[in-house]
């Protein structure tokens, strides 16, 4: 765990850790050694189970198995709340808002429950690129965004939506397995340097996000895509956690 800000031992032998990014973890461990001048604290995990409090993530996944929708097809998105692309329990529609943005024009769209999960049904959409995001307001705000392709071969640039914290593809194109994928992190429209971005993908066996990236001076980061299916990028900054679902056709 990086940039740990607080370490609080508890009487039951666990230790509470919190990073400057707001990530929290509780582990069964003991402090072995502290080297404060070297900013180093060595912990030894005890054999009991790790209990982790994680910042929840909100994300969207399109209900299609090939990465896009065709014109005339019903555009459906499922909303998930959980961690590392593993849905948790109990996402309700309370406090959940959704918006669809096309050609810079934003409209609110209804969130509905369907067969035990939350979803957005946009009906049929016109050919082109559509950005959809969800928001759950609270002490810690959550955002989840996805870019949808209706039809084929839409390669024009995407505008940022101006969310408090947002991951924006660096030039929209079809993301392919075995290629580099670049994106930028914006906070209130401005690039954020030095921010950790967590990345994961559908079906990972990792308990934590398999990739930890860091934005450069221009708020950009890049990842080499090695997994089939969709990727989820997640970033936390100033009490906001924002995700971006990268939809791949393979």
């Amino acid at each position, binding site marked *: 765990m990086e940039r740990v800000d607080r370490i609080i031992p508890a009487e039951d032998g666990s230790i509470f850790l919190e990073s400057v990014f707001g990530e929290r973890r509780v582990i069964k461990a003991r402090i072995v050694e502290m080297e404060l001048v070297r900013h180093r604290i060595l912990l030894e995990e005890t054999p009991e189970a790790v209990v982790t409090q994680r910042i929840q993530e909100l994300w969207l996944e399109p209900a299609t198995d*090939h*990465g*896009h929708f*065709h014109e005339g097809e019903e555009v459906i998105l499922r909303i998930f709340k959980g961690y590392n692309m593993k849905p948790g329990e109990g996402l309700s529609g309370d406090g959940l808002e959704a918006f669809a943005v096309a050609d810079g024009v934003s409209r609110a769209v209804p969130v509905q429950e369907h067969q035990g999960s939350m979803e957005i049904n946009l009906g049929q959409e016109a050919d082109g690129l559509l950005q959809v995001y969800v928001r759950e307001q609270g002490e810690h705000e959550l955002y989840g965004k996805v870019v949808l392709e209706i039809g*084929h071969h839409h390669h024009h640039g995407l505008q940022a939506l101006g969310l408090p914290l947002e991951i924006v593809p660096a030039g929209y194109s*079809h993301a*392919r*397995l*075995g290629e580099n994928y670049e994106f930028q992190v914006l906070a209130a429209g401005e690039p954020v340097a030095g921010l950790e971005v967590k990345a994961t993908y559908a079906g*990972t*066996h*990792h*308990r934590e996000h*398999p990739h930890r990236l860091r934005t450069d001076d221009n708020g950009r980061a890049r990842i*080499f895509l*090695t*997994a*089939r299916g969709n990727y989820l990028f997640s970033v936390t900054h100033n009490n906001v956690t924002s995700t971006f679902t990268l939809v791949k*056709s*393979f």
Partner: protein
Amino acid sequence: MCKDMSPLEKAIQFHGHVCPGLLMGVRVAEFAMHRLGVSADVNEELLAVVETDSCGVDAIQAILGCTFGKGNLIFKDYGKNVYTIASRENGQAIRVAQKFRNSRTPQSQRYRELVCKGPLTEAEAAEKEELIALLFEQLMSTPFEELFDWKEIDFEFPPKAGIFNTIQCTRCGEGVIDIKATETARGPVCPGCLAENGGR
């Protein structure tokens, strides 16, 4: 799938999973297409002679279209990661051989151990996932000449795959193409029956 797949995606879909062997075959196939100035084969314009039956051959089939069923994939069971790709159209051929390495990297060695292990724990599955991601990026980004030796060669093109008559085996009654049958005292016999009866 309604969108074109990349060569790599085609290879992965055909093979069923990502592995270092497949990726090496992808590198060979893509290099051959570039070097020979060809695209995927339609009707035996391209020919591949492969000296291995390892994962990489699936990439040759999926990307180059040199396939077992089309007759333009010739298999020599030498156990060597050597591929000869030839183009009838321009008369050119290249021979590509994977460089021999005395030792594996620790990541490659560990990946191999996990592949051979059988059922994995969750932690081992995550470790294997991480290793293949690392190897994937390494193998796709390493300069080609660091992985393979290659040269242009003179190549004698065999005839294109033939179409033959089917006759009936006099032992089992099943159909067999005439050039594979052996004439015996009782009539044509298929190779399977011939082997079962001591070559008679």
